[in-house]
């Protein structure tokens, strides 16, 4: 447990020292989401209809931006070797890294989304559902992304491969996440979608660190 906390602390400290990386993803999210209302114009009915999809697609792409840097710096400077050789299980340390990735990229998106959602004329109920959906969905994006980042570690042109590998796996999160907000707006209730999203998260929490660890071991051999 101490090892997890040490890894999270270290990665957050590193994120603080390389602020530009974190801010890039955040500004990307803000700009992409803000451009749509400006481009479409003040048609509130249309904006309300497309809001969940746009916010989710932007969140998805913003998470992808920093993904290739999740393990690459650790691989380059030998930290990954030391993690494999640490007396704590590698799966635990990898989980710590994924949590740190979520805190630096996922959590800011969750907090910003309601503010950006106002531009799309979403009411407070829909904004709440959006926030909850993102709160469940963004850890899922970090977990799935970690598998892709580990699999493409040390591969030339890994960035493109990473997108090809990870984006299809993000589709269920996108469908249920955006679907939850749409269902709430249309009066069907978001419960079903959110439950499915949470089920996906539970599955990913269990399998993703394990798959990531296996991929990292192969990359290091």
């Amino acid at each position, binding site marked *: 447990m*101490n*090892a997890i906390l*040490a*890894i999270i*602390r*270290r990665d957050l*400290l*590193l994120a603080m*020292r*390389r602020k530009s990386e974190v801010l890039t993803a955040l500004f990307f999210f803000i700009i992409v989401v803000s451009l749509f209302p400006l481009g479409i114009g003040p048609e509130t009915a249309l904006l309300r209809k497309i809001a969940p999809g746009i916010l989710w697609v932007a969140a998805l792409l913003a998470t992808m931006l920093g993904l290739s840097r999740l393990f690459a710096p650790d691989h*380059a*400077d*030998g*930290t990954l*070797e*030391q*993690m*494999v*050789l*640490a*007396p*704590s*299980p590698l799966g635990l*340390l990898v989980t710590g890294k994924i949590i740190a990735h979520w805190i630096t990229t996922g959590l800011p998106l969750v907090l910003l989304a309601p503010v950006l959602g106002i531009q799309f004329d979403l009411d407070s109920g829909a904004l709440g559902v959006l926030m909850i959906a993102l709160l469940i969905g963004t850890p899922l994006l970090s977990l799935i992304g970690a598998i892709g980042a580990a699999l493409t570690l040390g591969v030339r042109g890994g960035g493109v491969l990473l997108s090809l590998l990870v984006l299809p796996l993000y589709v269920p999160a996108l469908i249920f996440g955006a679907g939850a907000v749409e269902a709430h707006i249309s009066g069907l209730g978001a419960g079903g979608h959110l439950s499915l999203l949470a089920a996906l998260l539970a599955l990913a929490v269990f399998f993703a660190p394990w798959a990531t660890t296996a991929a990292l071991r192969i990359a*290091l*051999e």
Partner: protein
Amino acid sequence: MLTATGLSCVRGERCLFSGLDLAVGPGEWLHVQGENGAGKTSLLRILASLSPPAEGEIHWKNAPIRTLAEDYHRDMLFLGHHGAVKEELTPFENLTLAAKLDGAPLDETAALKALARFGLRGREDLAVRFLSAGQKRRVLLARLAVRQATLWILDEPFTALDVKAVDMLSGLIEEHVKAGGICILTSHQSMPLPNGRVLKI
């Protein structure tokens, strides 16, 4: 006691070495020598359990290291070519965070003492990015002074170090071996230490 029997290593289609036996006991150290590309680093990585050997078995205290896993990691310290030193963090942060990962948290005075021993006094709070290559190596070597491990596996520990630091490191290894530790290292320099054996590959 570390023993290896019938080790072989294959990289691509080339066989680097095969049928390699070695045994190092407490109070001994092994100097692995060989030309560039002979497989020194590969051998050390196999011994550190970072990559599996193509053939052969490695035992630590009479148990195969495959089954020991984390118990072996606790007894062993591996320092490779790459520093595992984060450029954005200070030497102090690097050292204390590495110690936490090793499961042996370090208090502030012990960490500062170790850094001072390696001539980094006054540089504790400067990001490693601003240090020279030799000073970066010193940050890494400070871990040797604080980590309680029986087996040291060091890959080219003398690279980029100045004369004074080389003496300091030799002294550290001598101390470790005298106290019953084991050290396996690669180096192109000759090492004037007692109880040493040379393995040529």
